[in-house]
């Protein structure tokens, strides 16, 4: 258990800035996720915390001491790797006891602690097996047990589930989270999977271009994105340019400070409704043409284009009438202006409303 404080951590590769002024505070026991597209600096930051490469400046403070200049093998942070990194030449038990042997823990205690952690990750019956006889999911549990058994101050996970298939990913996601919660282990987790980030984390930290865009609780990230990048990367969004207070020629009620140009209206697909008759009270209707209606079981996804040709994606409750709308039929795309957000048109443009 530990609280972590990153103070102005910077790192560049030649002229390329990988991390720019990273300031993060992670409370003890927090599940803190670094989320972002590839190349955003999330793995670089994680590996800087682990000590696999030196950052150029700044401090990595864990429990009040700066560990940023310690060699990696002295930092006592656990790490789970994307490719499991389970030593192929030794058994599951020897893999898990590796770190304990390095720490010169007495033999009897090693056996006890290894058994205990293997129970926790449900691998006790596989203790004497060699890694090649395990499935991917089991190997990653070995990786987790091996990192946790040394009682690290902090657990780091680098896309630990991305090499697994979809079903297993969801199962192991729950398991990871419950082990982490039961041990109250401060965890920094790297992923590019937004659903994983939202489902597991106490705090989601969205990164882009080596810069933290927003660090907040999942609900906050989804519902009150700090900028256009977060709004676009987490969940999906339709961005429609605002021209002199209108969208596709229809006047939309907007806050007073929205500029005449250079702003966009963000509409989440699930906040959109499609009506063929009159627009309900309090909603704004944009005339649109239906391109395609796809039924996916839980919902219906509709692709439309507005009168000015812009394409929009909507997700609606399953409705047979909607499903039977022929290609090219005219409809009104309705939304509640209170649920619409306004951003500056830039990639990382500020939220205006």
């Amino acid at each position, binding site marked *: 258990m530990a609280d972590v404080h990153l103070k102005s951590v910077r790192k560049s590769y030649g002229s390329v800035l990988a991390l720019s002024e990273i300031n993060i505070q992670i409370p003890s026991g927090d599940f803190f996720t670094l989320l972002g597209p590839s190349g955003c600096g999330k793995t670089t930051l994680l590996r800087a915390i*682990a000590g696999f490469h030196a950052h150029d400046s700044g401090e990595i403070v864990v429990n009040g001491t700066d560990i940023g200049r310690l060699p*990696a093998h002295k930092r006592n942070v656990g790490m789970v*790797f994307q490719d499991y990194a389970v030593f*192929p030449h030794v058994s599951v038990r020897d893999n898990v006891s*590796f770190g304990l042997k390095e720490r010169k823990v007495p033999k009897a205690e090693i056996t006890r602690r290894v058994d205990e952690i293997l129970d926790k990750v449900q691998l006790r019956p596989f203790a004497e097996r060699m890694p090649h006889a395990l499935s991917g999911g089991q190997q990653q549990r070995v990786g987790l047990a*091996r990192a946790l058994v040394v009682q690290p101050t902090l657990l780091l996970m680098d896309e630990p589930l991305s090499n697994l298939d979809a079903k297993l990913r969801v199962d192991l996601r729950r398991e990871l989270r419950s082990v982490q919660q039961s041990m109250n282990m401060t965890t920094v987790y790297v992923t590019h999977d937004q659903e994983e980030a939202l489902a597991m984390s106490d705090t989601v930290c969205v990164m882009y271009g080596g810069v933290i865009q927003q660090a907040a609780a999942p609900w906050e990230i989804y519902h009150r994105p700090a900028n256009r990048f977060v709004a676009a990367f987490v969940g999906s969004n339709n961005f429609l340019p605002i021209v002199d207070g209108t969208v596709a020629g229809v006047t939309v009620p907007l806050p007073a400070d929205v500029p005449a140009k250079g702003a966009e209206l963000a509409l989440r697909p699930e906040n959109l409704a499609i009506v063929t008759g009159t627009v309900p009270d309090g909603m704004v209707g944009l005339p649109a043409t239906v391109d395609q209606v796809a039924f996916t079981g839980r919902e219906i996804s509709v692709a439309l284009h507005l009168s000015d040709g812009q394409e929009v994606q909507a997700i609606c409750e399953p409705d047979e009438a909607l499903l039977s709308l022929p290609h090219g039929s005219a409809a009104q795309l309705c939304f509640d202006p209170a649920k619409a957000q306004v951003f500056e048109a830039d990639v990382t443009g500020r939220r205006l409303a």
Partner: protein
Amino acid sequence: MTLPRLSLPSFWTWIMVAACVMLAVLLFWPILSVFVISFEDGDTGQFTLENYVQIFTRRYYLTALGNTLIVGFAGMLGACLLGVPLAFCMSRFQVRGRSIISTMAVLALVSPPFIGAYAWIMLLGNNGAITNALEAIGIDMPSIYGMRGIILVFALKFFPFIYLMTENALNGINKSLEDAAENLGCTAWGRFRKVTLPLVFPAVSTGAIISFVLSIADFGTPAIIGRGVRTLSTIAYSQYTSEMGGKPTMAVTISMVMIAISMLALLIQRRVLAKRRYASSMTHKQVKAPVSGGKSVLVHGVTYAIALAGMIPAFVVIWTSFIATNGPVFSGGFGLDSYRRIWSEAPDAIANSFIFALCAVALIAVVSSLLSFIVVRRESFISGALDLILMVPYLVPGVVMAIGFVTTFNSGWYNLVGTATMIVLIVFIRRLPYGVRSTSSVLRQVKPSIEEAAIALGSSPAKTFLKVTVPLIMPGIIVGSLMSFITAINELSSTLIVYTSSTVTMPVKIYLSVVDGEFGVAAALSTVLTVSTGLCVFLVFRLSEDREANFV
């Protein structure tokens, strides 16, 4: 109802049968006849175990057996101690001029060991350059002759095998594994010892076993630098020459023991390796760390020292070949006397070497492309067995193969004793695996669908092979031919048994010159050999993408 017509055996069936016959005649018959004769009484021809009893009871043989094992193990160990650190430095650090180092390693690998033995005598022998220099300032060098010299030559000769294989394996280790060990609290040395080394163990041991097998099979080195130290290959040779005329029972019995040791070494290594096959997904590639300051001096010092040590023999022979001589005596100053002498005294050796090697290589090119097609494309018991059988020539020492040929093809219409054909055939069968390996690795990358397309368009299997497959695998055939040429032209141990005055080759002439103390002639011939070998290495490098991998 009509019965399905019996179809004639197809083209590839014929080739397969021909391949089996060829291997039976050229590989198994000689080995079998050696095996049979080893159980015969030299005079009466009766079945007896006496030959083996003698080898395992008489001091003369036991000493040779012990010496062979000692030089084999020590040579292997020395090669590991040079090869593994070199591989580690090369794969983990940014070494300047790395291609120079790997080129030197390959050149050291392909130059024949007896040239190394003789070059070290030039430096450290009784009248060697370094010995004399040190004597002048009052330092007495321990003698290079005997065990010490043999081991030195083997270590410096065979470390490139270990280096090339280990470096390849080190580059293939998933970096996450070493990161994980570091993360769990392992120091740099601990990581190397507990994670890296066990993971490259299969590669190191494969290289080590090759060094061992080649060490115990080598004839030239112990013969030249061994002085009183006899090994199995030198006593097999001297037994063979002393039994000349009669049945070479003791020589063949020694040969059987040598084959047995090689096979045992291979079996032990296979057994140890069986439990250690690590398939690993590579998601995290190794990065070469920059080095500076004292570490840089150390890393560059180690790598260049090892690589240069392997090249010393080549430098020495080239240097001495240009020293003026007066008869067998170096008269000081530089001159081309040695070259004039080989031109007048040994033109036939040079011509023979090239003719024999080229004939063998032509055979190897044709046969290996056919064989590799069978091994790669035909899925049958025989094609699998062929793959294994082609390991056999690696295991049979040259002396043994030659004795086998002489005891087999010695009468009637198939009497080949003393002919050039025998030398070509021995070299052919001994070096065939190089050609097959190189050709089949290229063929494995050619999709069968290309050949199937030709057949579907109406081309016969034989025509498809000639018109489609051969052009596609030509790079492999050429590289394989060059590799076989390198080993063929440097062949000594088998040729020495079967040569006559009209079929003398360069390595034989070098050996005889060294024995006669004609060091100038030996140096000039060695230079011709070294330069032609170097030229082939250069061509392999130019023609092949995976340069160094061809040599191991």
